């Protein structure tokens, strides 16, 4: 390639070397260092004046450092009068955050796009963006390459030919249906779809059905207080709210009557304002108690159920509490949802566990989430007076539930061996430390641990009986949802074998170890777009990495020579 320089960041040197050798060029010299204060510094080791500069940097486990590195390299090249700067990011960092998933969510993918553009990138080459709409985040051209042809060829040669029986491509959630049908069409196989129906109450920001007294809305005047009033009006027996509570309650003997004592407790604690310190200590104590309870599988399921019912309880009850306090606002419901999530640390844990398996974007590591979710609980000062009251009510209910669990539920309880969380995980929750401080592979977990406590209902739409299943998604990080799906397919649906297929394999923490010991997964097939440490790849017998460097190299070559890239969307470059 004349007048072109290929630079590589430190995120994925192995891939960069492969791309360079495919192109028949040397990687251009660059020195990337850290100052002692952890700032990144870049020194391009050759002239780039009037050259086409290609900078290869994939996302990695130290995402922010490597992103910053890429940005500084782009900026350096720009300042050094490069003619055109192309950033090659096989795995685009923050691509999972491509839309406002919840209220007040950030679109960080867009932010990264803007940062790249601002730093001076003229062109971006990436691969299998989580949502193809992301190319619209940029104001510069984006080439979104596909790994599908490469994967499809490998699968045709190695799985389809080898499998004496039929092959079926399966999506583990509805969001992946399009991807799955596309690969199925290409391979000429059938497809199926797994749907995990998480109970609405377990989704922290679910779009719940319109239960609360909206039917009474027209009668109440517009203005402050209408929703709180509406809720109050709806609580009597026979109302839709009551029905919905009865219908969704996981435990039949928890109904409004159970909630009422908690409410009274709240009312009692309200007048006597204790000092904040005592309260904080109290909530800490509760938190520790809950963590311990989690370690004990006997209580665990119950605590979880309590947390769920508690969430529901505080959701519906608290507008009344608020109404006693001060003039309720139309935001009463919003407010106390937040308050409720601040109130109980137990709730947070269950939230995290559920969220890790949530429908669409479930591969973000749970331990990272923990830190974020924990933060509000660490700041009781900022929590409103109401939330304290709710916390008390919550604690009351929780305590009741625990007592009952200990006294009555023993025979039906889950065996201790299948503790749903390893000691290490609990340690992490209690201490609040980060995953990176953990050893790379956790002590082996009981195989059943991912699903024992799941209350969700799994449905398979389609037929996999006696077939080899390719469980497809665009990326795999924490594998719990894949493993749950694989188990369901093998045990309940009669699948012959399950192979996990993904474009990007992130495998944070103990992911590969968990796949290794899962008896339901035969292989996990990913490309090498994302760097996986050598010790993990060699330790894993199930991992198969397919080289994607030829596609990237061909895209760079075609870009440089002004040829069409679309050729690569359907075909293999070699």
């Amino acid at each position, binding site marked *: 390639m004349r007048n072109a320089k290929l630079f590589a960041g430190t995120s994925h040197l192995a891939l960069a070397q492969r791309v360079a050798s495919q192109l028949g060029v040397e990687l251009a010299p660059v020195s990337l260092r850290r100052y002692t204060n952890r700032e990144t510094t870049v020194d391009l080791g050759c002239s780039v004046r009037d050259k086409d500069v290609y900078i290869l940097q994939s996302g990695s486990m130290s995402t922010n450092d490597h992103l910053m590195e890429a940005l500084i390299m782009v900026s350096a090249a720009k300042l050094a009068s490069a003619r055109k700067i192309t950033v090659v990011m096989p795995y685009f960092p923050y691509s999972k955050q491509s839309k406002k998933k919840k209220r007040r969510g950030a679109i960080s993918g867009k932010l990264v796009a803007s940062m790249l553009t601002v730093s001076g990138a003229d062109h971006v080459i990436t691969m299998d963006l989580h*949502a193809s709409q992301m190319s619209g985040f940029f104001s510069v051209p984006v080439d979104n390459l596909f790994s599908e042809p490469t994967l499809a060829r490998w699968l045709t040669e190695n799985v389809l030919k080898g499998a004496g029986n039929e092959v079926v491509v399966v999506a583990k959630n509805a969001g992946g249906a399009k991807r799955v049908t596309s690969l199925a069409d290409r391979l000429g196989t059938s497809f199926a779809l797994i749907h995990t129906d998480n109970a609405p109450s377990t989704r922290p920001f679910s779009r*719940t059905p319109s239960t609360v007294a909206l039917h009474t809305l027209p009668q109440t005047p517009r203005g402050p207080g209408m929703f709180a009033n509406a809720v109050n009006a709806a609580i009597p027996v026979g109302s839709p709210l009551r029905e919905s509570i009865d219908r969704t309650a996981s435990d039949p003997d928890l109904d409004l009557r159970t909630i009422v004592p908690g409410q009274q407790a709240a009312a009692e604690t309200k007048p006597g304002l204790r000092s904040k310190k005592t309260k904080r200590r109290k909530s800490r104590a509760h938190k520790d108690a809950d963590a311990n309870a989690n370690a004990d599988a006997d209580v665990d399921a119950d605590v979880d159920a309590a947390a769920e019912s508690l969430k529901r309880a505080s959701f519906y009850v608290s507008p009344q509490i608020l109404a006693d306090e001060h003039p309720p606002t139309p*935001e009463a419901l919003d407010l106390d949802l937040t308050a409720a999530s601040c109130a109980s640390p137990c709730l947070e844990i269950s939230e995290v566990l559920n969220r890790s398996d949530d429908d669409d974007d479930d591969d973000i590591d749970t331990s990272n989430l923990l830190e974020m979710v924990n933060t509000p609980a660490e700041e009781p000062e900022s929590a409103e007076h109401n939330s304290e009251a709710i916390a008390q009510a919550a604690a009351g209910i929780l305590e009741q539930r625990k007592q009952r669990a200990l006294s009555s539920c023993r025979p039906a309880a889950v065996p201790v061996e299948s503790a749903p969380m390893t000691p290490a995980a609990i340690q992490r929750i209690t201490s609040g430390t980060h995953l990176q401080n953990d050893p790379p592979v956790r002590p082996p977990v009981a195989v059943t641990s991912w699903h024992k406590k799941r209350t969700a209902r799994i*449905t398979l739409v389609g037929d996999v009986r006696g077939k080899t299943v390719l469980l497809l998604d665009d990326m795999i990080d924490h594998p719990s949802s894949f493993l749950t799906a694989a188990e369901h397919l093998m045990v309940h649906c009669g699948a012959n074998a399950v192979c996990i297929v993904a474009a990007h394999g992130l495998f944070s923490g103990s992911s590969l170890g968990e796949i290794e010991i899962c008896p339901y997964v035969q292989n996990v097939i990913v490309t090498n777009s994302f760097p996986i440490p050598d010790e993990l790849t060699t330790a894993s017998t199930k991992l198969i990495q397919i080289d994607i460097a030829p596609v990237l190299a061909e895209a760079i070559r075609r870009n440089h020579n002004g040829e069409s890239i679309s050729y690569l969307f359907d075909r293999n470059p070699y």
Partner: protein
Amino acid sequence: MSSNSIRILAGNSHPALAKLIAKRLGTDLANVTVSKYSNQETAVTIGESVRDEDVYIIQSGCGEINDHLMELLILINACKTASARRITAVLPCFPYARQDKKDKSRAPISAKLVANMLTVAGADHVITMDLHASQIQGFFDRPVDNLYGEPSVLRYIRENIPDWKNAIIVSPDAGGAKRATSIADHLDLDFALIHKERKKANEVSRMVLVGDVKEKVAILVDDMADTCGTLGLAAKTLMENGASAVYAIVIHGVLSGKALDVINNSMLTRVVVTNTIPHAEKKKLCPKLDTIDVSAVLAEAIRRTHNGESVSYLFGHATI
């Protein structure tokens, strides 16, 4: 200081919806004339002061879509230059929303272009409904409130479809599977999926139904229905597979081309659309059409935006 009250402006795209919204907010539409010069240029006159006011401009992406987009841009710009404090574009149906990615080589991302145009014209805030892809929110540098028709749809199903407890929610393509599962979850129903196998580009060769619809009421859900070819074929497939009746519920009913003929001649029992796009005339020609009114959701979003209250409540709850 001036009162800084809500001002509702409307273009020519959907005056009925604008009137409904204004009525719900207890105000009148501002006095605005939007017409055309003889050379077909759009002319806008704003008949009253908007200085320091909170301006909401309602314009849906439908009919003469480019004219209406141009009207909206000129209205925004006119308000900007007339010193409005804040300008919110309310687009019940976002124009060009389907061109949101490079699905083919060299395809434009026109939705991004529209986003840029709105921003450049001077919109400070955008309110829209059921974007074809939520990622379009990221095309803007401004806040975008993407409202959902789903709560209204859920209520419609509960109240207007007899025997809905024996229903199954069906997505007419793989891309809509998520929408279908979400509705199915909330109603505690099963769901199924129809996939169009494309042997060649632009040629629907075969429809594959995944899931069991035998003796059930099938409810097709989608975000947009244009020529209704897919819906017609899907209904046929469902009936062939033993469904007892087929309903279709669609948020944005574009219903262009020969859509009405297709619906009339199809096996669909009823086609339900929201009023993000006007279809009063079409309803006379097609008795199978039914309407869900979403003006309340839009009005409530405007009220909450104006008062600085949270809009997210509306994501999960239908307002009347």
